[in-house]
């Protein structure tokens, strides 16, 4: 019973393969770069990270709201404040994301093998709309009732009302605080990794070495 364990080869160890895969996602030094090409010194390049900052505040205020519950903001000034912070950070998040989208669209940001970067951005945008929609349905007020009754016919017309019932506030709340944030978070991480992997898209008329 003195079987000797030989060290695993690089190809046989899944941890090594996973580690190599993770470290190879972005070029060395590009995960958190400390310098950028000269053309990045423009305000239009700021709105991507502003969107990310907005998302951080959205998630943070949302986490606090989950502690108090959906009715907290009706009965507490602190709850009302956190709820308002959640709403307005969402407004800024979407405004920055749309300006970021406009900038990247007119820049044709899918150039240079950046197609998946563009597509993950589009998916993040659509998933964010769904997350905001379920948030409006979770306000626990007349507004959420109005929106849900107006939305049910549209949802039913595309045949998903049996699985996504906008008249079920419990289901909508769980989609809002669990499922869709996971989707938005995962897509956002993938989007950022792709941006760091392929680099920030240069302007159309940028010269090599700018």
């Amino acid at each position, binding site marked *: 019973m003195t079987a000797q364990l030989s060290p695993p080869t690089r190809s046989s160890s899944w941890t090594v393969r996973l580690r190599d895969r993770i470290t190879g996602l972005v*070029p*060395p*030094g*590009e995960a958190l*770069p*400390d*310098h*950028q*090409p*000269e*053309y*990045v*010194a*423009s*305000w*239009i390049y*700021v*709105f991507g990270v502003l969107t990310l900052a907005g998302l951080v505040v959205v998630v943070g205020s949302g986490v606090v709201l989950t502690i108090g519950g959906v009715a907290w903001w009706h009965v507490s000034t602190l709850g009302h404040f956190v709820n308002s912070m959640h709403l307005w950070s969402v407004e800024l998040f979407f*405004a920055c994301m*749309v*300006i970021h989208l*406009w*900038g990247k669209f007119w820049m044709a940001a899918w*150039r*240079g*093998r950046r197609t998946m970067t563009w597509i993950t951005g589009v998916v993040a945008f659509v998933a964010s709309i769904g997350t905001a929609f379920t948030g409006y349905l979770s306000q626990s*007020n*007349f*507004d959420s009732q109005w929106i849900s009754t107006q939305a049910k016919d549209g949802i039913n017309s595309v045949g998903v009302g049996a699985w996504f019932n906008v008249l079920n506030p419990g289901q909508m709340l769980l989609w809002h605080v669990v499922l869709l944030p996971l989707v938005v978070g995962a897509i956002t991480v993938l989007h950022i990794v792709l941006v760091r*992997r*392929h*680099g*920030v*898209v*240069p302007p159309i008329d*940028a010269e*090599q070495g700018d």
Partner: protein
Amino acid sequence: MTAATEKVTGMALMSVVSAGTPAEPGHYVQWGVISISLTNLSIILIMIVVFVLAILVPMGGGRHVDVHADPPPRDPPGGPVDAGDGGRR
């Protein structure tokens, strides 16, 4: 339910409704088939203005910002990496 109870219930409901809804309907802009609230239109116009300013206003108050000048680029093992070269991979 007596008439008095019904009246009290109705008043309570009205007070809740009035507290949760605006006193006046919103202002809307009509242009053919397009109908948009003045608030939403204003937000869209502000976003367009911010977008144009973000393109036109130079970063750093008009000063030339040489982001490569300081600190010097840190070359990774195996050679320099050209960030944002329009098709690194």
